[in-house]
């Protein structure tokens, strides 16, 4: 608690978007996440780093309740977005996911056209009244995802025909087409080559202006490059959370130091 207060004082005027208090996650009898306390800021890129199996993806998937689809998974503790408990029984997870978009590790466009991929979200949420509005949202989303120039002439070609990097940017366009408030990214660059990675990273930096972005990554360089805040997870514990510069240059926990210097992980 002390640590949190110290961080708060150092932060600028940005507000907390998501707050987690004593979050526990169990897979059956396996206690996967223990006592996670974290404040995710609005209009900020927050990176979750840590060795494989440390629980960072699990925590990410708590934020839009994607863990609900795993029958054995149980979440305890308090998770709020804008002060509202997202695990409240009154919350419809489907509605929540429209506000908290997600981009997955492997690019997973629908086997439909590029246009239909992006238009799907706005369509099912009824965000548009006519075709012209839908066209506008599709174009805006693809532009924001820095993909427009590459696909504007073939919007009706299948999305699965794009290259890996383009597919991932298409998935980002699809996720932001519903105008979410938070964008979760689960290792979005792990299947991409360095050039595509650079494009996606640049994009993440631009998206920060509108969304709160949470990114899980295995690459510490990537965390250092794109994020303003970093959380280090280890064996189901949130070991350290703070400003990215501070975590990488002057970690307060010896485990964080061991990990970023490559001694554990």
């Amino acid at each position, binding site marked *: 608690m002390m640590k949190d207060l110290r961080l708060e004082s150092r932060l600028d005027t940005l507000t907390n978007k998501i707050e987690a208090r004593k979050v526990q996650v169990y897979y059956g009898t396996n206690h996967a996440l223990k006592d996670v306390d974290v404040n995710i800021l609005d209009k900020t890129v927050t990176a979750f780093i840590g060795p494989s199996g440390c629980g960072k993806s699990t925590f990410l998937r708590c934020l*839009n309740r*994607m863990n609900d*689809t795993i*029958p054995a998974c149980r979440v305890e503790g308090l998770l709020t977005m804008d002060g509202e408990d997202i695990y409240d029984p009154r919350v419809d997870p*489907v*509605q*929540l*996911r*429209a506000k908290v*978009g*997600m*981009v*997955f590790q*492997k690019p*997973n*466009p*629908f*086997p439909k056209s590029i246009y239909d991929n992006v238009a*799907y*979200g706005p369509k*099912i*949420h009824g965000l548009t009244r006519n075709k012209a509005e839908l066209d506008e949202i599709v174009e805006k989303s693809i532009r924001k995802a820095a993909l427009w120039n590459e696909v504007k002439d073939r919007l009706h070609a299948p999305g*699965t025909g794009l290259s890996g990097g383009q597919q991932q940017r298409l*998935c980002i366009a*699809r*996720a932001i087409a*519903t105008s979410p408030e938070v964008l979760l990214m689960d290792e979005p660059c792990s299947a991409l080559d360095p050039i595509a990675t650079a494009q996606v990273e640049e994009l993440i930096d631009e998206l920060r202006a509108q969304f709160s972005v949470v990114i899980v990554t295995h690459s510490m360089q990537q965390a250092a490059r794109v994020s303003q805040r970093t959380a280090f997870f280890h064996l189901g514990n949130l070991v350290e959370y703070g400003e990215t510069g501070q975590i990488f240059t002057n970690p307060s926990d010896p485990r964080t130091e061991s990990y970023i210097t490559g001694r554990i992980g």
Partner: protein
Amino acid sequence: MSSLFTQDKKTTARNAAEKRFRAYGVVAITLALLALVWLLISIFGAGLPAFRQTFLTFPVTLDVAVLDKQGHALPAEMAKVTTIGYGKVLASSLAAEIAAQGIDTGGMTAKDLADMISEESAATLRNKVLGNPALLGQTISFTALANGRIDGFFKGRVTMESAKLDKNTSPEKLVLAGKLRDAGILSIRFNTGFLTMPDASDKRPEAAGLGVAIIGSLYMMFVVLVLALPIGVAASVYLEEFAPKNRWTDLIEVNIANLAAVPSIVYGILGLAIFINFAGLPQSAPIVGGLVLTLMTLPRIIIPTRAALKAVPPSIRDAALGIGASKLQTVTHHVLPLAMPGILTGTIIGLAQALGETAPLLLIGMVAFVRDFPGAPPSGLFDPASALPVQIYNWTQRSDPGFVERASGAIIVLLVFLIAMNTVAIILRRKYERRW
């Protein structure tokens, strides 16, 4: 130092083993192909003649004195004349035509001449006249079926030697048949009746057709498709996408797998008990056959459908859920369309199995001798009908050798249906196959 050009003992032995294994494979495939070829040759050899039939075409004088003794042309009075009367008319007309053409009958009696015409033709003529009494007194050109023995003579089934021992025919009749063919009265043509006419009694193989059986089978396939496809797909989607994974769903899963292996006759007993004895549905009706086959087909549709749903990558579900689609939207918009080729293939193969199923139909009375065509659906579904595999089974039981060719011909028809259905399945699979 060993050279690369000489093989050591172990390599030689290994290569020899591989060569032997390949040889076993080739032998196995050859045996399988030979069996298939043998099967096809025997079926087509025996069955193809069923598609050709011997007909007698001659002018028939519809004698009012015989067919309408009162001369009032009233249907009620005319109906009193049985097929025997019409048989006499046919025989005398044929005798007159033979005399007119100057063909030597070798001293055959009128009864012998009448024997050359199928008994079925008298009934056909009677129906024709009763349907149109204005024909009375006219001379019409009529095409009659030749007797099964005459037909068999031209197909090689009946020979002069066998005719000598046969009470139903004689060498003289066969000789006359040859003469009639030369005179153009007797001809051998494609037999549409085999596909359109109903079954005929034991003594008339020449008139037996698959009409009722084909319609019965089509009705049943319709019932199976309408019931088994939606129920099977809904059950699969629920089990695969919505059901909690617990002991109950495990139990259901094991039971579905077991039900697919239950002998089909068991479904027949079940159908007899439930649909006929309990629900009171009519015997021999396509609706009951369809219901029984639906029960039998359901697990055979559910298993491939679930496999097809499982084969849809989870990343697609994640993508849809992550965007905020509901579970149902995820399934209907993304999972089902991607699984559709697998579902359709499974369904069509399930239907094809149902089409060829005999045993359960025997138990619900579809083995009955049915000559009346069932009516149009939906009420026709409750009329008695036959089914293709049961008709084959039936014909193999008949004593007249003419039914051997009918049964084999029916097998060809059934095979054509099955091959057509499997072709559709393959085309659908090819067409909608997606790579992701």
